[in-house]
């Protein structure tokens, strides 16, 4: 647990530095936001741990974050404003850096695959993206939204 907290703090710190370089938000300005985001993650973990049934922590973290920034929660606008100082792309960049550094371990299993599965993978990803976007668009058009 202590190590998990250390890890997310470290990644938060790297994200704040990235946010500073990429989006010109000073670390001091972004600090409250990242502390709130780390706190939300910890609370979500806590909920996942104390619940009597097994559930993905993603769900609880999302719900806590959603709840405290929604209009019904006291102080929501301050919380939303503070976390907005941290660009969502700046937070995703360090995560994808770790993703990149883990890729090497999958090269061997990739070499054993046939070219067909590579083609199918691309088709499958295209399908899920394109059809979801298309269905959303159709409903929006029927509703006359755009």
């Amino acid at each position: 647990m202590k190590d998990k907290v250390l890890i997310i703090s470290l990644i938060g710190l790297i994200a704040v530095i990235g946010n500073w370089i990429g989006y010109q938000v000073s670390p001091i300005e972004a600090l409250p936001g990242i502390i709130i985001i780390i706190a939300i993650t910890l609370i979500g973990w806590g909920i996942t741990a104390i619940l009597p049934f097994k559930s993905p922590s993603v769900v609880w973290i999302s719900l806590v974050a959603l709840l405290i920034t929604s209009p019904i929660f006291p102080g929501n606008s301050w919380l939303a404003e503070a976390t907005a100082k941290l660009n969502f792309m700046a937070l995703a960049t360090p995560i994808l850096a770790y993703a990149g550094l883990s890729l090497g371990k999958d090269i061997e299993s990739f070499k054993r695959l046939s070219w067909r599965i590579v083609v199918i993978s691309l088709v499958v990803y295209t399908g899920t993206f394109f059809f979801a976007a298309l269905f959303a668009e159709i409903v929006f058009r029927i509703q006359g939204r755009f």
Partner: protein
Amino acid sequence: MKSSVRDWKLHLIVLLLVIVGEWIGARKINLGFGVLALFPMLYVLVLGGIISWPSFRWLKEEQMKKAATILGIAFLLFVAKLGTMLGPSLLKIFEAGWSLAFQEIGHFIGTIILGLPIALWLGMGRESIGATFSIDREPNLAIISEKYGADSPEGRGALGVYVCGTLFGAIYLALLAGFLGSMGILHPISLAMGAGVGSGSMMAAASGALAVVFPEHEQDIAVFAGAANLLTTILGTYICIFFSLPITVRLYNRLAPIIGKQPVAAKEEETNA
């Protein structure tokens, strides 16, 4: 777990990658028939991949595994951030209720209607079931190996798409999103919902590309991609068990004799007997 924190080399590389990536910043390259959206997330992913390339021996296998563990934890921060963007926009999300519901259907059948016929046409056998019933992230992999076993043809198909997705899913979706976005046929919000494919890194990369193509919609793109991704994550396992997998199996049995190649049909008889 303890050792993954103490691996300062790993964290230092990430810090350097982030500094370099953010310093280069976002770039849009017009190809004439579409736009290539490049941005920090993609640079660090590619650079990280090069650094971990096995033949360079810059990182040990153990360190790559640590990076994967950290990735899982780090992703939760991103989830928290997206949640804080969803909260203030709840009303907007509810207003898009029907679109959000229908795009979710698109996520689940999109893999099958496009993937399964092509898989059969390429001559794949029962592998095509595992490969196309979902986008094959961890929960889907668990479903397949529970039902057929990890070593079955279905399991191999699922694992294959899983590995490909890990290696270039994020890059591919970013290119696809930037490309489809620049065509101007679909609205940025519809595309954003499409980006919520149910994998964190892929969603981040795809919505990042859309934000580069449509900077004026950046906030909405993150909100709707986040909402769609949350839906896909929460409903995903159940939809795959009760809907996607049975449908894929049925369609496979229907289509395999028609568009499947000869050797596949022979193998099919073998498994049935």
